């Protein structure tokens, strides 16, 4: 029996800073209908298991999984929620298919941050209630501390970080679903408001509303349903410590471990050479560079030079975040990873329009769950299912 698992359908709404015309259920339904249409399936008959990714405090509802089944066609079927990024959901569905007991699985993630009136207050509830919360600090302080230490130890400059923002928001100009596209220059950073120095408001990915639904299937089913499935050749996920006190403030070891797991599965030994482009978490500007290093995707000259020399530009040697990333598309909380997966699949199918990267055959997508977590997922997609190389 084959162990291979493929993506056979994708659906997403537009990512917008507000979405007052649709309830969260209606938003999810829209993305689901698109994904099922793309996969050519009927969820009531053809899907064996559903996984959704959500966090209660983002939704404003306790035990939010109560409200997921109807609008994705999952009522009275195996469906459950993962408190994790959409890519954690992908890993879950992947495991389920690999047991041999499920053939088609659906992963859903969405968010409506515009419905949070007090996002800073809500995010503060994520801090340790005993050692950190009593200091009453805005959660961004963690990113400020980390960026400062990271730049100090690696020699990466704030300009390098700014250039990540400029690149990603520019890439988003040609991505029709992106919600935060802009043309910026280094001058804009001179006037940016400080959040937690050296972090400015331009360094922070701004939230958007949206929903993404992905359909995956076993090899037999994928080939029966779709001519050009995109294969999941590797997937890995890992946690570090939740304690701010005992973590490494420069190297996100958990990203490296997640990547090692995925690389091993995909039989990738030299990721820089064997992967065509990457969608890397960029909730904060410096995070893209920090994550690139952890993923072992930098050339010898280092992450700073990668951005400096345009290597990670969309027409560069190794494009990073051609979709626009979280900085350019907008930050979608638990749906962030799936949104990137959606864009990567479009690239691999050759459907990325003006942003299309020539001969894109293998992609890496990485997600991080945001502050204050140390939780990462890495997945490798490929057109042929083997190791395509470049």
């Amino acid at each position, binding site marked *: 029996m084959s162990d291979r698992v493929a993506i056979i359908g994708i659906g997403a709404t537009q990512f917008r800073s507000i979405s007052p015309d649709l309830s969260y259920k209606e938003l999810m339904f829209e993305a689901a209908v698109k994904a099922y249409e793309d996969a050519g399936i009927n969820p009531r008959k053809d899907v064996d298991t559903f996984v959704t990714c959500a966090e209660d405090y983002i939704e404003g509802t306790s035990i939010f999984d109560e409200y997921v089944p109807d609008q994705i066609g999952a009522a009275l079927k195996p469906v459950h929620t993962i408190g994790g990024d959409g890519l954690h959901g992908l890993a879950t569905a992947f495991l389920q298919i690999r047991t041999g007991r499920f053939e088609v699985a659906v992963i859903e993630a969405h968010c409506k941050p515009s419905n949070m009136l007090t996002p*800073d207050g809500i995010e503060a509830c994520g801090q340790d209630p*005993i050692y950190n919360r009593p*200091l009453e600090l805005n959660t961004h302080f963690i990113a*400020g*501390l*980390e960026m400062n230490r990271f730049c100090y130890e690696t020699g990466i400059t704030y300009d390098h970080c700014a250039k990540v923002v400029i690149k990603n928001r520019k890439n988003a100009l040609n991505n029709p679903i992106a919600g935060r596209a802009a043309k910026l220059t280094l001058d804009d950073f001179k006037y940016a408001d400080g959040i937690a120095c050296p*972090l400015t408001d331009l360094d922070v990915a701004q939230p958007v509303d949206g929903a993404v639904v992905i359909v995956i299937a076993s090899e037999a089913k994928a080939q029966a349903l779709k001519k050009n499935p995109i294969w999941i050749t590797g997937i890995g996920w890992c946690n570090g410590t939740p304690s701010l006190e*005992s973590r490494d403030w420069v190297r996100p070891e958990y990203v490296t471990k997640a990547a090692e797991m995925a690389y091993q599965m995909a039989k990738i030994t030299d990721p820089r050479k064997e992967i065509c482009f990457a969608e890397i978490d960029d909730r904060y500007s410096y995070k893209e560079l920090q994550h690139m290093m952890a993923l072992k995707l930098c050339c010898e000259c280092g992450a700073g030079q990668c951005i400096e020399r345009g290597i990670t530009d969309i027409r560069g040697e190794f494009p990073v975040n051609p979709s626009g990333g979280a900085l350019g598309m907008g930050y979608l909380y638990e749906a962030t990873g799936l949104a990137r997966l959606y864009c990567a699949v479009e690239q691999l199918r050759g459907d990325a329009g003006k942003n299309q990267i020539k001969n894109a055959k293998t992609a890496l997508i990485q997600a991080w769950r945001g502050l204050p977590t140390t939780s990462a997922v890495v997945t490798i997609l490929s057109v042929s299912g083997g190791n395509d190389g470049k």
Partner: protein
Amino acid sequence: MAIKERLNKASKAKAWYGEMPVESLYTVGIAGEKFFRAIKDEGKFLGTKCKKCSMVYVPPKIYCERCFEKLDEYIEVAECGSLESFTCVHIGLDGNRLPAPIIVGLINLDGASTCIIHKLGETTVEELCMGMRVCAVFKPKNKREGAITDILYFKPTKQ
């Protein structure tokens, strides 16, 4: 479009207002109790040491998160240490800009493998540098209540 009918007037798009009430009372735990009692009663920092990997956790944990050993050996560490990182926070918990920014530091106390997060005082952000020596300033003993806020802040010390 997946849904046949759409809203077509801005006035029809409405929201329902509400909240998720959060009021919590947290016990500080077994290790936390030792840690805060030592601060409250003696103005000193306790940590736990892992016999297997030698990690010294300050604040203490009853387990080593890396090798999962049970930790019950409490050791005292210094109230001074080196500044591993710092930031100047301009926005408050409500997302609004603060009238005066708060300086926050990551402090590796001498003898600890981990860092404490706290505010920095009696200084400006311009004066700070990585690796600088800082020491804890506690509340007066009679005002302490067994919480992280019994430390007012850390302040730089002259070498």
